[in-house]
């Protein structure tokens, strides 16, 4: 069965890299460009995993993560932070909101695939 992956990032470049990275796998990638749109997309699409940026307009990634954790239908979704900020304070804030992983930008597609496979399992398209 196709895995559903949601990328939430204000950069089109990052959303495109996530889409390309998972193209060889049995996945459906959807995208949102800020935290608020991201929470809506999560409620609508019920993704198996979310890649979340921190610095975004309208609603930051940490605010969106808090909202997801408070929303029963999506509260248990694994969320991986994909962000240029890797200081102890941000890591701690994300940890407190039960992140499933943390990938620092700059990043390579392989890192996303490895972590996704570990968390939810991935299969290659035939």
């Amino acid at each position, binding site marked *: 069965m196709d895995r559903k992956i949601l990328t939430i990032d204000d950069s089109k470049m990052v959303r495109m890299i996530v889409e390309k990275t998972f193209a060889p796998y049995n996945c459906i990638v959807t995208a949102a460009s800020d935290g608020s749109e991201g929470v809506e997309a999560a409620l609508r699409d019920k993704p198996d995993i979310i890649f979340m940026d921190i*610095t975004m307009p309208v609603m930051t990634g940490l605010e969106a993560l808090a909202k997801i954790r408070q929303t029963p239908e999506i509260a248990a979704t694994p969320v991986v932070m994909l962000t240029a900020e890797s*200081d102890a304070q941000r890591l701690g804030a994300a940890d407190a909101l039960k992140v499933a992983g943390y990938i620092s*930008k700059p990043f390579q597609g392989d890192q996303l695939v490895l972590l996704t496979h570990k968390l939810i399992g991935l299969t290659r398209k035939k």
Partner: protein
Amino acid sequence: MSATPPPIHQLSLWLVSSVHNVFDTMFQLSTEQLPAEEMHLPAGETVAVSIGFVGQVNVEVLIYAPSQAAMQLASIVLEMPAAELDQPTVGDVMGELGNMVVGAVKSNVSDLGLDCTMTIPSVSFVSECRTPLHTADSSTTLGFEFHGGKCLIKLVLKPAA
């Protein structure tokens, strides 16, 4: 209590190492740092990115790259022919490049116990690069060369708001 920001020299060391890391990881390009005074960006359309962080330390970073070089970077990272890239997409790539470069500097500053928040990159296309290339207590300009292009990065340490 007012916090003491790291000196401009330390900020610029973090910035240089971050530039090398971002170009290497995202674009598979090695970068060479050159004295900014000796580096002249080619005349013509230039992408200008402004990005930074605010809080107990306030930093603005301005990145200037010729549009041609920016298009080449976008083409590498998005695996798309340059001819298929529109201006907003190229601008987005340069804005996110700035976010990654400055994010590492911000993380180092935060790890000193100084609370700051990243700003959203603002990107514009200007007819040419006009930035004064001086180094002072509060600002410095760095030049970088990579395969097929050059960029200038100005780091400005601003007084606390």
